[in-house]
């Protein structure tokens, strides 16, 4: 496990039932049954504190940021920039200017692919991505390779869903220019040894982008301890709003990169023929951003910091162990992704029942899971399956809900018996 995870304090006890009241949507009933929300890897639910902060912003502060001289503009700017500072502290970034607001992980990866990759990659260069990438950390690299003539090489994994680190190490050569790798797999739940992956890349003078979309909700991420060059994540998967995310970048790399988009806010001065770009982070934030999203993400960080992350991680590990054990008991059920280091994501297939049918039958009991290829078709091809059913847990889930899931799966088997 990563050093960042190991150093978390684990003394305090945490139980999901303590925080369920913070998430109003969980009180809902679906088809007459209490909602059992197990689709957290797709998106997580939002605590009242985040909803309130966003409401308050629109009720009391709404204005455009950075340019106004009036009271509201000043207030809005302060809230937005306070969120940036909170995020920098949360991920241990050296400075808030290294925290760039984007729409989400996907945009963060596209930004780096365009402003770093398209500019620097040459024909014959090599880019390494892992075999378990989400489409969002695969397709942008395919596109930039197509544009530059660089070649994409895939870091292979074993049948448990763990990367072959020894093989990865041997993939480096004089043409290797970049590594893009997922921290936690959204399908397999694998927690990749990113600190080691980065150390090996740096030993070869190659920078690394980490897709942290599934990691940030589950573990304390320290970008300095990881020594990541770029780290991307989304607000909505960590109990924050949709439409806002973060790209963290090493300062000298960001400084050397051209802007991603042109427009307002990313400039210092403009004439008809020449523009001087703004400083970090604004150089990469063209146009009026998702201000309320940033404010909401700031409130999310405050919420998460009010909890003991170590105790939460221990609780989620316990949930994962319990769910793994209960699901493994079900005849005909096969868990896809059995890495030794896993986050609370379980993909599975049932003999004779397509994941879609499982999803529909579980929904009838108010259980929300995800079914399909999870935007990771190559991972499905790797395991020789068209789709999986996936239950993914967050800090507000309980063992009782896992029991309901197990019952629901038995019911699906009965329907199809």
């Amino acid at each position, binding site marked *: 496990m990563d050093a960042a995870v190991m150093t978390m304090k684990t003394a305090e006890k945490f139980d999901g039932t303590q925080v369920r009241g913070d998430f109003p949507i969980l009180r809902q009933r679906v088809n007459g049954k209490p909602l059992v929300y197990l689709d957290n890897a797709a998106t997580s639910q939002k605590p009242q504190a985040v909803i309130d902060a966003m409401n308050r912003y629109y009720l009391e502060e709404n204005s455009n940021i950075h340019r106004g001289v009036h009271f509201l503009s000043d207030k809005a700017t302060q809230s937005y920039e306070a969120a940036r500072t909170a995020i920098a502290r949360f991920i241990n970034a050296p400075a808030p200017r290294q925290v760039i607001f984007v729409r989400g992980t996907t945009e963060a990866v596209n930004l780096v692919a365009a402003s770093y990759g398209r500019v620097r990659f040459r024909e014959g260069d090599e880019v390494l991505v892992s075999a378990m990438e989400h489409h969002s950390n695969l397709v942008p690299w395919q596109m930039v390779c197509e544009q530059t003539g660089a070649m994409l090489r895939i870091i292979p994994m074993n049948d448990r869903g763990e990367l072959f680190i020894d093989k990865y190490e041997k993939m480096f050569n004089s043409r290797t220019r970049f590594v893009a790798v997922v921290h936690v797999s959204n399908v397999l739940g694998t927690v990749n040894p990113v600190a080691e992956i980065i150390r090996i890349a740096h030993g070869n003078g190659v920078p690394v982008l980490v897709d942290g979309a599934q990691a940030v909700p589950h573990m304390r991420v320290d970008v300095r301890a990881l020594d990541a060059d770029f780290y991307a994540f989304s607000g909505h998967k960590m109990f924050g709003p949709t439409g806002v995310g973060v790209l963290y970048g090493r300062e000298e790399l960001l400084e050397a990169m051209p802007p991603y988009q042109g427009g307002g806010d990313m400039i210092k001065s403009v004439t008809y023929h020449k523009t001087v770009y703004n400083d970090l982070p604004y150089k990469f934030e063209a146009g009026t951003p998702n201000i309320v999203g940033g404010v909401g993400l700031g409130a999310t960080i405050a919420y998460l910091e009010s909890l003991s992350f170590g105790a939460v991680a221990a609780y989620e590990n316990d949930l994962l162990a319990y769910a793994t054990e209960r699901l493994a008991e079900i005849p005909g059920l096969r868990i896809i992704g059995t890495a030794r280091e896993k986050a609370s994501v379980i993909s599975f297939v049932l003999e004779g*029942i*397509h*994941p*879609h*049918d499982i999803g*529909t*039958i579980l929904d*009838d009991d108010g259980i929300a899971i995800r*079914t*399909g*290829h999870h935007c990771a*078709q190559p991972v*499905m091809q790797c395991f020789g399956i*068209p*789709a999986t059913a996936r239950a993914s847990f967050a800090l507000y889930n309980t063992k009782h809900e896992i029991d309901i899931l197990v019952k629901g799966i038995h019911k699906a088997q009965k*329907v*199809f018996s």
Partner: protein
Amino acid sequence: MSALRELYQEVILDHNKSPRNFGRLEHPDRKVDGYNPLCGDHFTIFLKLNGDVIEDIRFDGAGCAISKASASVMSSVVKGKTIAEAEELFGLFHRLVTGEGDPMEQVERLGKLAAFSGVSEFPARVKCATLAWHTLHTALRTGEHRTTTE
């Protein structure tokens, strides 16, 4: 469980378990792949035509119970029908699964297809039920290429 039971009717479970006309046709007149990129369901439909009559039909591929049963039931109801009759059935079926109109009005013409009436309660599953039909439609209209439900 009533909406669910309505969805997974005996006919559907039976056709899922033992699909009719499952397999390939040697030397088909038409062969079209159908694919639902959302869930990965994919079927290939093979047709043997005699003038404008569907003389034989087979399908191959994999998908959920709804999509597989739909392909199976479709294959059994369109066999021996003319292209125009098959297209008309598709129209009826489409209205049935999307909950348009009164399905009971058409119940006689729908025959076995009426088993899919429960689908209209599950909007996310309409694409599963219609994948094979869209594929057939493409095959009847154009011949050899690929269709998707997108």
